């Protein structure tokens, strides 16, 4: 399968990865090679086969709806790139 530069640009945008034109060209070639490898899968007849997400086919455990974690805001924010007054700072999103 061969991808176009536009495909790569769209995926990079969805994945929130800034890419230069050279990077897009390299990625296009490499991803096309990988999708050739993946293409082998498409010919397999899987009618009636249930998808498998966990080897043991276990169901999700439930627990009581009670708080289990103590508040550690200061500790967690001590490793954040930018905080102020207990809030995480990001560039302004609302004018």
């Amino acid at each position, binding site marked *: 399968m061969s991808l176009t530069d536009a*495909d*790569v640009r769209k*995926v*990079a945008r*969805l*994945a*929130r*990865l*800034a*890419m230069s034109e050279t990077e897009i060209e390299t*990625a296009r070639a*490499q*991803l096309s*090679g*990988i*999708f*050739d*490898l*993946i*293409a*082998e*899968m*498409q010919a*397999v007849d*899987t009618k009636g*086969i*249930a*998808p*498998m*997400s*966990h*080897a*043991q086919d*276990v169901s*999700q*455990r439930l*627990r009581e709806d009670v708080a289990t974690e103590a508040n*550690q805001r200061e*500790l*967690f924010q*001590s*490793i*954040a*790139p*930018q905080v102020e007054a207990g809030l*995480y700072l*990001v*560039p*302004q*999103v609302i004018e």
Partner: protein
Amino acid sequence: MINATLKQLSAQLAGKKISSVELTQIYLDRIAALNPALNAYITTNAETSLAQARAADALLAGGKAQALTGIPIAQKDIFCAKGWRTTCGSKMLENFIAPYDAHVIEQFNKAGAVNLGKTNMDEFAMGSSNETSYFGPVRNPWDRNSVPGGSSGGAACAVAARLCAAATGTDTGGSIRQPAALCGISGIKPTYGTVSRYGMIAFASSLDQAGPMARSVEDLALMLNVMTGFDTRDSTSLQRDKEDYARDLAKPLNGLRIGLPKEFFAEGLSNDVAQAVEAAIAEYKKLGATVVDISLPNSRLSVPVYYVLAPAEASSNLSRFDGVRYGYRAPEYSDLTDMYEKTRAQGFGAEVKRRIMIGTYVLSHGYYDAYYLQAQKIRRLIAQDFTEAFKQCDVIMGPTSPSTAFNLGEKGDDPVQMYLSDIYTIAVNLAGLPGMSIPCGFGKNNMPVGLQIIGNYFAEAEMLNVAHQYQLATDWHSRAPQEI
């Protein structure tokens, strides 16, 4: 001392022949001497390690020691350890100090073990050569121009070079077994759900599983006893009774049925690896085993299936790295989206970005059924092949890797060639089965070859028995690289 088994070290510590502080210092000195050339560790912290060793010595003096009390263990840098820099091999987490302990780290702390340091790895465990690490490649101690394998390459190197008593690794598509094979050590990936993933930085959550890496199978059993156990904080952790993985080590192998999948001995396997594996099978026959020819017809699809499922899950897991709550943030940006895009472009390496792109594509609108769902269906077919095979045999054996360690840089430009080096290990992760690798000889240029042993679900004790009996009859596992 540096060649001693964990059991021997434990006896030395209990008998006051050596203290944990002295033992830890021996390893710290070795790391200081050898790590600049091998690059097996990303982070060491002598003060913290020695403080743990002093605490262990107090436990030993008070008669409160357990099997691993006072023993220096290397932790893969994928496990969050409170107060330790935890990088996952990425620039994204270059300065990330973990605010909590992973379940695995808690287990070792409870056992009184010493954390010797954090081992190098492929970035976010994505790689088979340890060359994708932001902190530089690890060298194979058997030949410093060769790769150690990956992603647990630092752990495998540290064990082989006697830079720790034993180590932890994680295995999503072969990341414990392949580096174990390439570095001539033993490693086991237990049944999916046996070791908690809590605090283990996620790559592909339906496949990721932690396990031990060591110089002998007996050591693996002791390590597994500490690492396993139910944990409510991992939604896929399995609720099972605690078991002693060393309980069956001494059993004779009379009547053992070994399945040999014809697909594992076909085109693509190097002659030197084939010869060493065949010699190991011959040794097993001498030990009383019989051989059954089996087939895993869908195993050829495991690489394509894996390269849909693992990147899909990775693209979702790695969306958390956005430069807001922790980790790297780009120094300059114009708005929020620009901040995300630049942070991720600068923080992630090429292989990680490649996999995020694959994953994003296969999960994007209109492609889900054709890729992700189709891959999950074939995953079941691959698992069913094993179920059928285990009706005819007790364990499955074959090569761990199609070749011995390749040269640094050899496969760097071609991701597909690199992906194919995990061709024999990936199916085991997809099925969720336990798999291990033990040394079984040497191939060309005197590089180690690994024998892969695959067991049925929860058959770890049996596999360890099978592997241990081989190690009693052979000495491949006790060979050490020169200049070590």
